[in-house]
């Protein structure tokens, strides 16, 4: 070992061990991150077990045939100029990310990407079942297990989002609410692409929280990529690029305005604007990165990115209109009707509270009575999140998550023309996040007033700062 005359080690190959120089090592049970990781593992296990348990008993959904059929898109990515990516019904019908995910899931479980023929909804179930459109059971279960894992990961992501914005109690509550929600649970037990969307949105919220905590281009690009991937799964997340860029623009103006008092000519940056490391530029890049990702992962768009993207949007509108004709009872006339149905479903058939109360064997009457609780909690949480965002300012993670939740839910409500259950999933995700924040914030307020609670002095948790070290005056009083 190389040392100086005073016995100091000098045999360093990197500077990594210069970093944790000051704080004393903490006991392992004092590590907040460790506890959070343990809770995350517990939530993951609970969620995965819950979802996996119901795979066999969940009925077949014809859309599973379509998503399993398109699993071959994953390998067709290696042939981006091949027939799969020509202008045709299936390629237009759904963006491909959900198919890639199913394809990865099948490959990881030893199933090939070539599966059943695509279900034709125009024909009878008998025609489809007799002619190879019904998926093999092994493929179907593999696809469902894929979503079991993704759904459990979404629960973990939600836990971390809410824990970051409030505390672990809120995070646990949000995770449990997501697990308890029957709509989400049902979709997590089907081989569809909706679980991927839920996970993408939850990860986006988590990335935005960390981006606002500590702005980095790597996270900003990741956020843009997630928006793009979300769009290349179910279109509506692309709308999220607008508020993100809008908030970025506001921050840019804020930075420019802030620089006016400081002789702008002497500041880094062009014409008084902040330099590129400012988070405003990072958020402004979101639409570009999202758009690039959307095109990059979807070879169908390559020959004419803008023209074909417009074709896709028009085609989706036609499909919505067609669904509306085929299912007149599910037809939605306007956003008011859409909001009303959302309320009805989420406070009734798809209520997590009711589902949980039924599960533990309480009388159905109690479940029915308390069914709207999750939505009320979510609304209260949205209010709390809004207040926190207002208090913490433009550059707070609270505002970012508020924007994501509000815009995604509003986009779904405004654009919904037919009330298929899966369309409510992003709203459910927003609900559990805000409800968790409400639980966390209220829980923390209650905790503060608990009589007789042992309060550890904060300074006792650091050992290495020598006695007599100066402290800021503002901190002297504790």
């Amino acid at each position: 070992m190389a040392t100086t005359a005073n016995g100091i080690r000098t045999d360093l190959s990197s500077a990594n061990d210069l970093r944790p120089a000051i704080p004393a090592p903490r006991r392992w049970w004092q590590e907040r991150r460790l506890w959070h990781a343990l809770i995350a593992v517990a939530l993951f296990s609970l969620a995965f077990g819950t979802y996996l348990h119901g795979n066999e008993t969940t009925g077949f959904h014809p859309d599973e045939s379509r998503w399993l059929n398109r699993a071959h898109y994953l390998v067709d990515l290696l042939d981006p100029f091949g027939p799969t990516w020509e202008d045709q019904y299936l390629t237009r019908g759904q963006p491909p990310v959900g198919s890639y995910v199913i394809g990865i899931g099948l490959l990881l479980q030893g199933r090939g990407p070539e599966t059943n023929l695509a279900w034709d909804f125009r024909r009878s179930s008998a025609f489809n079942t007799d002619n190879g459109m019904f998926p093999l059971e092994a493929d179907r279960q593999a696809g469902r297990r894929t979503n079991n894992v993704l759904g459990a990961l979404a629960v973990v992501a939600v836990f971390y989002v809410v824990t970051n914005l409030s505390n672990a109690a809120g995070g646990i509550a949000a995770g449990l609410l997501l697990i308890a929600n029957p709509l989400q649970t049902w979709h997590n037990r089907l081989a569809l692409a909706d679980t991927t969307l839920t996970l993408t949105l939850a990860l986006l919220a988590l990335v935005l929280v960390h981006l606002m905590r500590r702005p980095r281009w790597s996270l900003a690009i990741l956020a843009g990529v997630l928006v793009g991937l979300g769009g290349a799964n179910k279109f509506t997340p692309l709308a999220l690029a607008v508020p993100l860029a809008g908030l970025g623009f506001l921050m840019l103006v804020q930075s420019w305005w802030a620089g006016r008092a400081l002789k702008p000519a002497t500041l880094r940056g062009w014409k008084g604007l902040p330099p590129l490391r400012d988070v405003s530029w990072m958020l402004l890049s979101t639409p570009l990165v999202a758009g690039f990702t959307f095109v990059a992962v979807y070879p169908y768009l390559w020959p004419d990115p803008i023209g074909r993207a417009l074709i896709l949007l028009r085609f989706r509108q036609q499909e919505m209109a067609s669904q509306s004709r085929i299912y007149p009872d599910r037809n939605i006339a306007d956003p008011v009707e859409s909001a009303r149905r959302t309320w009805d479903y989420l406070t009734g058939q798809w209520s997590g509270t009711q589902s949980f109360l039924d599960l533990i064997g309480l009388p159905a009457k109690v479940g029915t009575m308390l069914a709207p609780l999750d939505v009320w909690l979510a609304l209260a949480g949205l209010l709390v999140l809004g207040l926190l965002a207002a208090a913490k300012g433009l550059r707070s993670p609270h505002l970012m998550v508020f924007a994501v939740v509000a815009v995604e839910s509003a986009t779904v409500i405004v654009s919904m023309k037919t009330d298929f259950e899966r369309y409510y999933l992003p709203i459910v995700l927003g609900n559990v996040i805000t409800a968790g924040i409400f639980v966390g914030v209220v829980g923390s307020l209650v905790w503060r007033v608990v009589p007789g609670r042992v309060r550890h002095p904060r300074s006792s948790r650091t050992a290495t700062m020598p006695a007599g070290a100066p402290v800021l005056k503002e901190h002297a009083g504790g």
Partner: protein
Amino acid sequence: MADRPSPSQPPMRFRPRVSLGTMAAIAAALLIPLLVLAFFLVQWLVPHEGDDRLVGVKLAQPGAAASPPSLLTADDMKALNNITNDGSLFGMPMAVRVVRVSDPMTEEETQAAAARYVAATPIETTPGAKDGLLFYIAVPMNQPKAATAAFVPGEHFFPQMGLTQERLDTTLNDIVTPRLALGNYADAAKQGAAWVVYDQLFGTMPRIPLTHGQQVLNHLANWVLAPLVAMLTAGYAGLALWSGRAARQNRGLTAAPIDSPYIAAAVARGRADDALPAGAMLALIDAGNLQLAADGRTIAPGPEPDGADPFACAIWERTRELSEPAGGAIPRGAVLRLDDAFAPQLAYLESRLISGGLFSSQIPAMNRLMWGSGFLLVLIIASVLVPSLIGRAAAGFIVGCLALAVIAGLTWWTLHRYRSTDAGIREARIWLTTQQQAALAGDTAATLALRTYRDIVRQEDMVAERTALRADRGTHALQIMARLRGMSVA
């Protein structure tokens, strides 16, 4: 650090006339139009797909008909009309005709009879369009098991997405004929028509044949250019690794001893960045040389620091300069941009680090090397992507895109490269241990220096994570640090 230049002296290091940022802007200005051209040029060079083939069409004739009508039940007729209507909704005009004939017909005779039918009664969306498909079934009198069938596509019927002549033949042989042999001509008509509309929507389209020119480009891109790009990119990665190691070794030069927490922290972080002024301001606030207003957000200069570190003095001086026009204090809003005002002080500190052998003097040269070769490589890749797109060469295109991603990553890494030398890291370790020993012996100056060092080295963790690091820091200190760095307190 015996020979210490004063903060007012110009930095003693080589500065290229064109900064990296300017080079990046130039590169972007050159490359973006090139890539845009590469994408949009393709539309002119490859066969265009024409009108939207999934738009609904209307057939002038009924979708299904039987002659005599009694050949099909009302339910069969309704089902057949639904199927042909499904085809029309997605741009495929199709008609099904079930016709009574006197005697059994051969396949050729059925085909000829169907062709005559089309000639007499065209199946098309507009007169003369010849864009329809006839599904013709001939049922001999009293011999339903001898029925025969034929498909007659119009001259302009194809392309119909997944429906090809081969698929029509397969449907005829595998679906229709077996049912006809059983005498189920109505079922044969329904199943056959259902498979035709199925194949049109759900069958994979045939691969578009390449022209001779495209074939040449395809082979060139896949078999010559793609391996070449892969090799060049691997070489670029090797160059990046070599340049990183060479920069760290700094030609074997020794490093000067460290006597400042800012220098030590810069070495530990590997760069002289915004954490340093923020840490210095916090130290100045601790020492009372900068003062926080009651709200904890407005900063005003206090008494001039006496005997403090030159870097801290330079930060204090700059803060004082900036506060003068604003009435002697930095307003709370302006704190957001305060960190942008310390570029000269950071440049000065960096020059000290380089002249002391703590930061590598090789970095600018290495960066220029990386940027220059990266730029050249990107131009080469762009010239590979164009023939790959035109020649529909998957390998060329995928390798080109991956190479671009690798080069972008390596260039990013180059910009954020760790600048400390191995010798500098050794000196930082010595400084750190010495200070820790002194602090434990009750030296207050060493304690303060260590705290400043910690505030800089672990700044992001202190602000963005709820860790024990921040236990001796109050809310205002964290908020000031967050505000200066554009972060958000966890």
